């Protein structure tokens, strides 16, 4: 087989002055700029471009539009790239797929001979007995069937996600789409046109319409339309949101009006060996000849039923091929130079690795005349590309003239034009496009000045009726595989077999045989599948609807779908100081927080014996202000607040309707009608939603403002904390003037602050909240003031040890979705005599019964600290779990919290903890492990 370049021609897409070198399966090929990989391979005489999915049959260029699976190749490690549309780049490495050692001589070709062993659904039927057989055979089958190989190394190159909001989005850059874009843009609408090919023009390109395509392109561009080539729309989602994949970019369009001008896709004819290399659609032969100047055969047979096929035949003849036209129409026109076999069809193709001839005869006959040829062109059998417009909500109805399902009802913001809407000619498509462009612009609020006369003329042209479409027979008789679906290697015989098994609709056939489920998503096979299904079930084509349209209509790389990865992270305004101090950071929800600076043990020791400073800016903070503030808090918490005096702090826990603990924190009363509330770091957003939701329901006269970001906060803790505070403020920080669980508004380090005397870590502590942008300077001043006291910054790990030594719980870690205040020892805060609060009804029910389990402290002396989540067991049976565990220097042993049966909540009761194969003997310890009287934090 020798396919060579033809002499230069005006409409060619290649630049013969610019040479490009690519490698195909290790072979260096010389191509021209403007070539696709497919055309470059064709010019080099590579006619077998892939092996088929299941039977490993040789396949060659078929469509040249990216609508079939026949030329999927690996390019620079990326599998399943369509060679026929992928432009060549100098140095690119192409690997042909699904064959070994090569697509030309693939040892797995034997599978074709044993295809009788692989009927539809064979994986449900064969190798099922004995039971182990399938497990052995399945990996073997999988290794032989498939497409490209998924790259083992991740692609970390930058991808973009771009969202655009044009007034008018035109999907499809053929004649109709370009005309629509030109009109909409001319009216002033921000217009974007999406074209999947590298050049807009659609079927005008490669069929002698290059000049018209250029004219329409120029018109659209000069009107201001933005044309995105190489950017196929692949899905329509709610909104409508239209997704498109550009080079390394995911586009999301939310347009006011959408015009679908997605054209029509040429379809295959079904006859034995219709998949042989050398059998191709006219879109392929015309593009090869006109755009890439390659003659794909010397002796061609063109099967057609329309003028389109005759034009394709003339193109081949003009390029130097001898051509025979096989026309299904008994009254087909004749030509002087091209023989026409009227009223005939192709009954079968002959050949092994390439087509060598065809048998031609009357439709339905079993024998005919054999013609020798090296090229078979299937011309003019098209199906409207309605998948995307159907995804957009269009209703499809059968059109007898075009023998196709067309959009008949459209959502108000959607238009369908051109071949996708059944336009019978280029002129009709252009007219439909112009009308839709004008309508879309007008619907977007732009004035259009088409002129009544012009609009009438456009309407007349748009409604031009074409000749009735004649389709080839559904299938031919005789031996040999007749493929309905090239992607999944599904034959006419297999479809009939599946229908006999009861899978008698398109949707069932799709799921059982996988027709239309391959890489082409039904582009090349939907019509043949529908017709074969209809024939097998005794239904007309109009009664056999296409399968449901779903995204993605065109393949899209997962990396493109993922797009640029954004990981929002929260950092306090003191973050840089922690980094400067050598902190090791960890994620705490969305926050980056210091886990430790030196060692957690040293940091714990500093707090217990001197003074430590921790950044607690991550705490959620709310200002609650207004006459209804107390009433709101009384409803949100089980605690009582009406008797809370200004300047006092209360520890509280919020409950949900079931009485389950949602969150805990402090409530400071700043004045009669103003409170400062803190909640846990990870729950801030949820609590904001919770409060806002209930506030909307209760309608109290109160305002709630999340001020988390407005305040930085630090906790200065340790026996020397007061000494440091005295250097930082002129306010009274004495035990009498500023006692435990009090709050003050005072200037600290020169900044107005809210200071709380609370003791999460069990020592004398001042929790200082101050305007966040002062963060770094205030931190610096505190560290400076603490220098003489040996102050050390401490991280989250030290804080966890310190709080555990006091048996202070962490909501979410020590509690779960069923924990109520009684079970965790917080029953003291529940005031059931209050009129109402969230969870009261549930707690009233609970109050009369003993909790099933309790959260208790425990101690042990194991070599290894049991991991959180370890099991609490009784006689080998799971009865509870460890929620927190750390080695405590203060207690001299391992301490922790665990859920145990409530009857076990007795000081000193032994129990076992198990993890992996280790058993730890522990004892219940009900009091805090450190300073049980609380004298240190009250000091």
């Amino acid at each position, binding site marked *: 087989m020798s396919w060579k370049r033809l002499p230069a021609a005006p409409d060619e897409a290649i630049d013969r002055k610019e040479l490009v070198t690519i490698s195909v399966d290790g072979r260096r090929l010389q191509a021209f700029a403007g070539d696709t990989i497919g055309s470059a391979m064709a010019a080099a005489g590579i006619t077998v471009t892939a092996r088929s999915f299941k039977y490993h049959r040789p396949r060659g260029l078929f469509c040249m539009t990216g609508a079939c699976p026949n030329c999927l190749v690996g390019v620079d490690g990326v599998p399943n790239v369509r060679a026929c549309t992928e432009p060549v780049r100098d140095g690119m490495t192409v690997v042909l797929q699904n064959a070994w050692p090569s697509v030309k001589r693939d040892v797995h070709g034997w599978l074709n001979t044993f295809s009788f062993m692989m009927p539809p659904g064979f994986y449900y039927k064969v190798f099922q007995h004995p039971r182990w057989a399938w497990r052995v055979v399945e990996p073997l089958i999988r290794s032989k069937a498939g497409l490209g190989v998924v790259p083992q190394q991740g692609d970390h190159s930058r991808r973009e996600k771009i969202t655009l*909001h044009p007034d008018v989005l035109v999907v499809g850059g053929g004649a109709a789409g370009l005309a629509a874009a030109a009109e909409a843009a001319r009216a002033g609408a921000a217009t974007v046109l999406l074209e999947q090919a590298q050049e807009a023009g659609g079927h005008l390109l490669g069929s002698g319409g290059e000049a018209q395509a250029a004219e329409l392109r120029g018109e659209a561009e000069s009107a201001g339309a933005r044309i995105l080539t190489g950017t196929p729309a692949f899905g329509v989602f709610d909104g409508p949101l239209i997704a498109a994949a550009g080079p390394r970019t995911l586009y999301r369009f939310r347009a006011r009006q959408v015009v679908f001008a997605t054209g029509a896709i040429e379809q295959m004819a079904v006859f034995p060996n219709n998949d042989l290399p050398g059998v191709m659609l006219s879109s392929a032969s015309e593009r090869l000849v006109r755009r890439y100047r390659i003659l794909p055969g010397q002796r061609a047979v063109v099967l057609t039923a329309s003028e389109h096929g005759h034009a394709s035949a003339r193109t081949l003849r003009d390029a130097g091929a001898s051509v025979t036209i096989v026309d299904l129409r008994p009254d087909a026109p004749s030509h002087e130079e091209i023989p026409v076999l009227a009223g005939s069809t192709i009954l079968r193709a002959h050949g092994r690795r390439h087509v060598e001839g065809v048998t031609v005869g009357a439709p339905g006959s079993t024998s005919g005349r054999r013609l020798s040829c090296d090229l078979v062109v299937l011309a003019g059998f098209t199906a409207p590309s309605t998948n995307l417009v159907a995804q957009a909500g269009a209703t499809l109805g059968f059109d007898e003239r075009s023998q196709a399902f067309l959009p008949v009802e459209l959502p108000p913001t959607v238009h369908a034009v051109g071949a996708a809407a059944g336009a019978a000619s280029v002129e009709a498509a252009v007219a439909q496009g112009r009308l839709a462009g004008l309508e879309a612009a007008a619907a977007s609020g732009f004035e259009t000045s088409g002129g009544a006369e012009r609009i009438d003329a456009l309407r007349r042209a748009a409604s031009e009726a074409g000749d009735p479409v004649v389709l080839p027979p559904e299938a031919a008789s005789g031996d040999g595989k007749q493929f309905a679906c090239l992607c999944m290697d599904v034959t006419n015989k297999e479809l009939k077999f599946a229908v006999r098994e009861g899978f008698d609709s398109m949707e069932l056939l799709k799921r059982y045989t996988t027709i239309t489920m391959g890489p082409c998503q039904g582009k090349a096979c939907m019509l043949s599948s529908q017709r074969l299904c209809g024939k097998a079930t005794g239904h007309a084509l109009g009664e056999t609807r296409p399968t449901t349209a779903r995204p993605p209509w065109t393949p899209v790389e997962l990396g493109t779908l993922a797009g640029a990865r954004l990981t929002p992270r929260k950092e306090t305004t003191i973050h840089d100081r922690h980094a400067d101090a050598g902190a090791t950071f960890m994620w705490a929800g969305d926050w980056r927080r210091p886990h430790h600076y030196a060692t957690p043990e040293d940091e714990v020791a500093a707090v217990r014996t001197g003074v430590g400073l921790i950044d607690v800016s991550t705490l959620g903070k709310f200002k609650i202000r207004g006459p209804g503030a107390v009433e709101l808090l009384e409803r949100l918490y089980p605690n009582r607040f009406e008797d809370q005096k200004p300047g006092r702090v209360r520890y509280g826990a919020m409950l949900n309707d079931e009485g389950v603990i949602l969150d805990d924190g402090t409530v400071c009363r700043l004045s009669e009608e103003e409170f400062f509330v803190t909640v846990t770091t990870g729950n801030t957003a949820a609590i904001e939603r919770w409060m806002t939701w209930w506030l909307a329901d209760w309608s109290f006269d109160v305002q709630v403002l999340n001020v988390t970001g407005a305040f930085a906060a630090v906790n200065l803790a340790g026996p020397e904390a007061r000494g440091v505070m005295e250097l930082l403020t002129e306010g009274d920080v004495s035990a009498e003037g500023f006692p435990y669980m009090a709050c003050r508004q005072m200037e600290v380090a020169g900044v107005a602050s809210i200071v709380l005397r609370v003791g999460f870590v069990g020592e004398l502590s001042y929790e200082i909240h101050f305007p*966040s942008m002062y963060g770094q300077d205030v931190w610096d001043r505190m560290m400076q003031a603490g220098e003489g006291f040996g102050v050390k910054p401490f991280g989250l790990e030290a804080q966890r040890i310190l709080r555990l030594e006091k048996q202070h719980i962490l909501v979410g870690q020590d509690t779960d979705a069923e924990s109520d205040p009684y079970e965790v020892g917080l029953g003291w805060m529940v005031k059931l005599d209050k009129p109402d609060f969230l969870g009261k009804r549930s707690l009233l029910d609970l109050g009369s019964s003993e909790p099933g389990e309790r959260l208790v402290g425990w101690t042990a002396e194991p070599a290894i600290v049991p991991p959180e989540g370890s099991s609490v067991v009784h006689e080998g049976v799971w009865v509870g779990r460890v929620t927190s565990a750390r080695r405590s220097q203060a207690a001299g042993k391992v301490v922790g919290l665990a859920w145990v049966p409530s009857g076990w909540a007795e000081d000193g009761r032994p129990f076992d903890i198990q993890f992996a194969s280790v058993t730890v003997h522990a004892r219940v310890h009900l009091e805090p492990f450190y300073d049980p009287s609380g004298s240190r934090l009250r000091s």
Partner: protein
Amino acid sequence: MSGTIATSAVPAARPSDDRPVLRSPSGSMHAALGAALALHSGWEIVRSYGEPDEERKSIVEALAIVDVTARAKIDVRGDLACVEPLGAEGDVVARLSPRWAMIFAAPGDIGDRVQALQDRAGTAAMVTDATHLYAGYALCGPLLPDLLARVTGWNPASLPPGGATGAPIADVRAVVVRRETPFPVVEVYVSSELGRYVWETLLGVVTSLGGGPAGWDALRAEGWS
């Protein structure tokens, strides 16, 4: 912008009364970019990144990002009618909903203004100094639509000049204000704890589009205040 900018070397000198310095959450990132810092109304702000003329060019011809966290911000929630007029001369008043407005003003102490507004509102509205709640970034230049297309699914064209709205920017909630300036400017305000992330993300996209960071000098020279 009112007030005088006192220039200093990096890092900025302390004010004479030795009060703590106010810094944007992304302050250290500016320093790493070689910013010339200055103190203004207690804030450490970026005057330029060394090439003020280039920065002006970016603002007018391409794309620039400026840290405007120092702007004063007042949050008003509740009955807005009772505190009309909300803004003073030079303020930008962003009405985000019928019961939520924000006022953006030149850097400086706004305690008295907040109190005055609160006094007028009584209990009908809550007036809060939100200066520390938000980090702010001005995005300027004709390539602004290209930038926004890459960082938000929200439609910027839906926001008229002088308008404000809540919108997702770089996957976080933001208050977006479109300024009435001779060149396109959108100011993005995000919760301060997200300031470093948002600056880093926006600067990455700005740079990929051929723009860069700019200081207050360039922005003011082009008529922004």
